[in-house]
Every structure is written in C-alpha cells, then in structure tokens.
C-alpha cells in the first residue's frame, strides 16, 4: 500500500515537472537552435539572435567567450550573440546530427583539423566576399578554413606543441639545456642520461586518438615525411622505438593524453615533455614552484632546418543558412586585431594574424616566445575531409612502432599502405 502512495506521488511529481518543463520550452521555442530554414529569429528589443557553439570548458576560456560576446553585443545594436557549450568529446557528433536534422546554430568555433570534413558535408557558408583581408592571416591556419580556393570562416586561435624541460632535473644531472640547435641524436643522449630513479627523460601523448596524431605527426614531418608520404618519415618510427626500448621515452605514452603527460611533468616524473601553451596556466596554478623552460623541438640533424610542429587551435565557421548576416558580423568583429589579441591573451593561445602574433605580450616572455618561434615552422593537419582516416592510419602505425609490435621499417610501410588505401 505504501508503495502505491509513493508511486502515485512520483507520478504526480513527474507530470507536474514535465508540464512545467514543456511550458518553459514552448516559450523559448522560437529562440536558439530552431530550424535552419527560418530566418535569424527575433529576441527582445528587435535585435536578431546569433547562436554560437563552442567547446570551451576551462574557466579562462569561458571568461574569454563571455567577454567576446558582451563586447560584440555592445558594439552594435543589430545582433545579439549568445553561446552554447557542447562538450569537446561530443562536438563532431552534435554537429553531424544538427546538420542531418537542420537544427543548426549560426556560428561554430571548432577544431581546425575537422573543418575540412564539415565544409565537405555542406555545413559552412562561402564567405570569400565578406570583406576580410585574408593576407593578414598566417598561412597554415588560413588554409584550414578554405577549400577549392573558397573561404568558409576565419581562424580563431592557433598554437602548436614544443619542448618543455625541467631545469632542476637538468641541473642535478649536469646536462645542458636543449635549445634550437639540439639534434635528434643529442636529444636522445640527454634523455637517456636523465632517465633514472623513476624519472623518464622524455614523454609525450601517443594515445590512439587525433590528440596522439597531433603530437606524433611532428616527428614524421621532421624526419622528412608527410601525412600522405609516411614512408619518407620512417626514421621517426625508429627514434621512437629505440628510445622506448632503452627507457628514455616513457612507455606509457601510448595511453597518455597531453594532460596526463603534463601531470607527470609537473610531478617530476618527466625531465622533458612535448606539450602546448595551454599548459602554461595549468603549471602556474598546480606547480608554481616548478622551474622549467621551453624551446623548439629537436631538429633532425645539424644541417636541418628548425623542426616542424603541428598546428592546433580553432577556427570560426559561418553556418550555411538563408540568412547568415549575424554570423558574418560576429566574424568581422573578431577579425579586428585588438579584439583578437585581447581574447588570445585570456585564452592562452596565439592570434592567427601575422602582425598580431608579434605583440610584445608574447615576444617579450621567453616561454611564450619559444612557442611563437615554433609556430613559424608549423603546419596544419591535412587539410582534408578525410583527415580522421589519415589520423587513424598514422596513429596506428606510430603505436605499432612504439609498442614494438612491428619493426620501424615495417610499421612505416604498413602505414603507407593504409594511407594509400584512403581514397
């Protein structure tokens, strides 16, 4: 009997709550997220809504978005921007579903390397004639917003990985710090010397996701290969396998994300790590007493150029809709150099415009300056609509070399075969 009463109460509660939820939503039905066929919908006061999707989750990033949005809203009266957070892990899926059902936002900030796929799926609007000075932008990031010569948005933030090293561990072992002249052989030797007492000389992220490719592809390019010509970079596989075998490169790398790597670096388990500028605020907060330096990644040999690094960062994409004026307005707002620079200072990444990146905020700080230096020889992943397949093939190969499942030569050849099979 008691159970029946309980059941009835719960029943009642659900009814009430769901009707309340229903009512709430029918009121808001006209705003955010409604069908792409309708024109940009109205909000209060006559200004039109611009809905922005992003996956920014740290406090610093959220603050940055908030500032951008309020700045945009107060700079003009015609449009009102708002943003929706979609978790990074779900982002591509949500975009795909949104496109499939025509439930689209107006503007999307997304990972640069996935933009090509979505351009191909018809998600984005051609904005080549929106009046933006395209030449102001750094070439690498700009390429990832384009396809067949047309522009579909602008880069938002750009960054790359570089080499971080623990000064205390180096001093204790009397090893010279790495710098822009360090070659692969010297790098291997110093890592080996620093590997003792539970400390690895070097570690990076080699998990079997695009995050792993993001870090490991760098070595393939520095060895002379590319994402379509993996075989030419076979030396990278050899370096990885050799270093893991003698313990100077952490075995756990195959399961580490960049965050795991940094956590280990901060705990003093790694003498060197490959990571990006977003870790700078993390280190400042969680390990403020850590004495570390940053330099470019080691080059192939004495005569080689500076090592290549892989570009990360986000792009702004304007969604293809009947009326995308609001989104274009936001894009032009961000295109303003001072807006861009302020946002990037808050974000912890770098502005994608050549001049903006020369701001003393970055060039004046040795740690930031090292990243900017690395940025000059950084290239985007792809760009290709089939980048995910390339990424999978390449990372599989890297993992096979790292776990010793195949010889470096075999791994390189098999990866090349897999890459060639991608039409």
């Amino acid at each position: 009997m008691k159970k029946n009463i309980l059941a009835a109460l719960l029943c009642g509660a659900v009814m009430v709550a769901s009707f309340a939820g229903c009512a709430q939503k029918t009121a808001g039905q006209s705003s955010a997220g409604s069908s792409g066929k309708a024109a940009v919908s109205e909000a209060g006061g006559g200004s039109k809504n611009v809905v922005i999707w992003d996956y920014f989750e740290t406090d610093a990033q959220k603050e940055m978005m908030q500032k951008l949005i309020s700045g945009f809203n107060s700079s003009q009266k015609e449009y009102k921007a708002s943003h929706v957070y979609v978790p990074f892990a779900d982002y591509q899926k949500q975009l795909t579903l949104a496109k499939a059902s025509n439930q689209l936002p107006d503007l999307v900030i997304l990972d640069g390397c996935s933009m090509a796929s979505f351009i191909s799926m018809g998600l984005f609007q051609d904005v080549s004639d929106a009046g933006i000075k395209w030449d102001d932008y750094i070439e690498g990031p700009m390429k990832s917003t384009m396809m067949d010569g047309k522009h579909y948005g602008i880069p938002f933030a750009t960054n790359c990985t570089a080499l971080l090293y623990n000064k205390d561990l180096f001093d204790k072992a009397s090893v010279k710090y790495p710098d822009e002249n360090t070659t692969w052989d010297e790098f291997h030797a110093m890592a080996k010397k620093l590997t003792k007492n539970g400390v690895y000389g070097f570690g990076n992220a080699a998990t079997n996701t695009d995050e792993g490719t993001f870090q490991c592809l760098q070595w393939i390019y520095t060895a002379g290969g590319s994402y379509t010509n993996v075989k030419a970079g076979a030396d990278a596989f050899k370096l990885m396998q050799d270093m893991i075998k003698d313990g100077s490169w952490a075995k756990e790398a195959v399961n580490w994300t960049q965050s795991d790597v940094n956590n280990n670096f901060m705990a003093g388990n790694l003498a060197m790590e490959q990571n990006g500028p977003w870790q700078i605020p993390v280190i400042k907060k969680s390990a403020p007493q850590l004495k570390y330096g940053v330099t470019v990644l080691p080059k192939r040999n004495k005569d080689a150029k500076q090592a290549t690094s892989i570009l990360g960062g986000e792009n702004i994409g304007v969604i293809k809709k009947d009326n995308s004026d609001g989104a274009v307005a936001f894009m032009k707002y961000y295109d303003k150099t001072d807006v861009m620079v302020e946002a990037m200072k808050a974000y912890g990444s770098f502005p994608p415009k050549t001049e903006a990146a020369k701001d003393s905020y970055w060039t004046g700080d040795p740690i930031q300056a090292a990243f900017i230096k690395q940025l000059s020889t950084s290239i985007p992943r792809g760009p290709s609509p089939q980048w995910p397949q390339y990424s999978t093939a390449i990372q599989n190969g890297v993992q096979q070399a790292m776990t010793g499942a195949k010889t470096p030569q075999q791994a390189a050849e098999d990866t090349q075969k897999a890459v060639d099979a991608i039409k």
Partner: protein
Amino acid sequence: MKKKTKKLRSGTYLGFAFTLPALVYMVIFIGIPIIQNILLSFKNVNVYTFADASQQKFIGFQNYAELFGAPDSILTKSIGNTLIFTVASIFFQFIIGFALALLFNKKFPGCNFFRGAIMVSWLLPVTVAGLLFKFIFARSGGIANQMLMALHFISQPLEWLLHPDSAMVAIVIANIWIGIPFNMMLILTGLTTVPEDIYESANLDGASWFQKLFYITIPMIKPAIISVLTLGFVYTFKVFDLVWVMTKGGPVNSTELVSTYAYRLSFEQFLFSKGAAAANVLFAILLCVGIFYLKTINSDEEM
C-alpha cells in the same frame, strides 16, 4: 477440456491486446531506426555525399564486402574481440552472481546491508566506473599494480591497458565488476519463487547441498537463468561506453569491439554507411542469439 478451449479463444485476442502497447512503442522508437540503419548500410553516404542527396545511391553489399575484405580487417578482429569480451564477462559474472545470490538468499546478520552495498557498483554511471578502472589500472600510479607489487605477486608493474595482450583482461575485469550485481539481483529474485517446503522435504530425504543445488534449485529457476544469460549476452555484446572510456578500442585495436568500431566509422571518420554496416553485423549476430533463446523458451512453455 471445455475450460481450456475457452481460454484459447479469448486468449488470442486478449494476449494480443495486453502486449500491443509495449510493442508499438518499441517499433516506433527503435524498430524504425533499425530499419533506417539497414537501409543506410546499403548506400554510399559519407563525408563527400552527405550534403548532396542526389549523390547517395544504393550500392548493395559493397560496404560489407569492403569492411570484411580489407587486409587485416578491423571488423573481423572486432567481432572476435567482442566474442571474447562477452563470453569471458558472462562466464564470471554469472558464476559469481549466482554464488552471491545463493549466499544472500540465506538469513544472517548483515546480509541485507552487504547485498545492498554490492548493488552500488551497478548504480554507478558506466562512464564513471570506466574512468575509475582506467585509473586503477594505470601502469604507474595505479593502485592495482601497487597492491600486486606490495603483495609480491609481481616484481614489475603490469602493462594492463597499455599492452595489446593485457588490455582486454583489464576491460573484462571492469565489466565483470559492473555486471555482477545485475546477475545476482535477477537470480535472487528467481530464487525467492522456490518455495521453502521443497527444500525442507529434500532435507528430510537427506539430500546434500550439491544435490539440492543441481536437482532442485537450478531446474526450478531455469527460466530466470536463461533470461539472465540471454540478456547478459545481448547487453554485454553491445557494450560501448565502458570500452570507449577506458581504451577507445586500443591499443592497436586490441580492444576494438564492433560497437566502438561502428561509432568510430560513423562519427569520427564520417563514413556513415560503413558505420551502419558494422552496426548491422552486430545486430545480425545478436539476432541469431535471440532466435536461439526463442527455441529454448519454446520447450518451457508447455509447463
């Protein structure tokens, strides 16, 4: 005689009527998506043809052929992995769950508390449980290795999730932990339908513990056992969240299940039709299991 025929006639429509609402619900919300999925697998929808409906054509079994025919076919490997994962999980989950059900069917101080506490592992959202075990099985810093080394079972830390050979073991252990309460609960419910008097008369006859188990308990709860095993198989075969969180199918595809592979194809590589094809392979395998289940309950019907 008369009674039975009367029941049969009214039974036809009545049984139908009782069952219909639930059936209609499932057909609408799941049945239709399943059919759409099947149709999708026969087309060529991918990142290039997604936007343009006119480019999407029927290509028959080509997707299936390509997935199975690829050198080192990941699909084939994933089917093998899924079978290993499922059989290993069910085997241990069932036996341990059964043993626990027998134990908690008795009355002793604390039995309610212990039984309730064991259910907690199943109340935990699977993603959290997956992360917890990923953390426990970390090569350095993971408590599993730490304890094994402290107890001198091993001298070097085990690779667990990092090595293709041991990753499967780790995810199976995690899945067993999550699945034991489910088995225990259902078998326990079944055990309560066995009346006490049967055991009492068996005791009077001098039956041993072993005989009671195999000649009374198991036959009497056979429908419950078959349901638990079948459902367990179906649910475990399509597990996704746990593996995705722990290994994403790696390292080197050693824990790639059909479900993770299908997800990867659809939502990471934008090969939607291929993803649908992989999902259908999973579906087809489970369909056979379902038919097998039907055959077994057939014989039970004539009770």
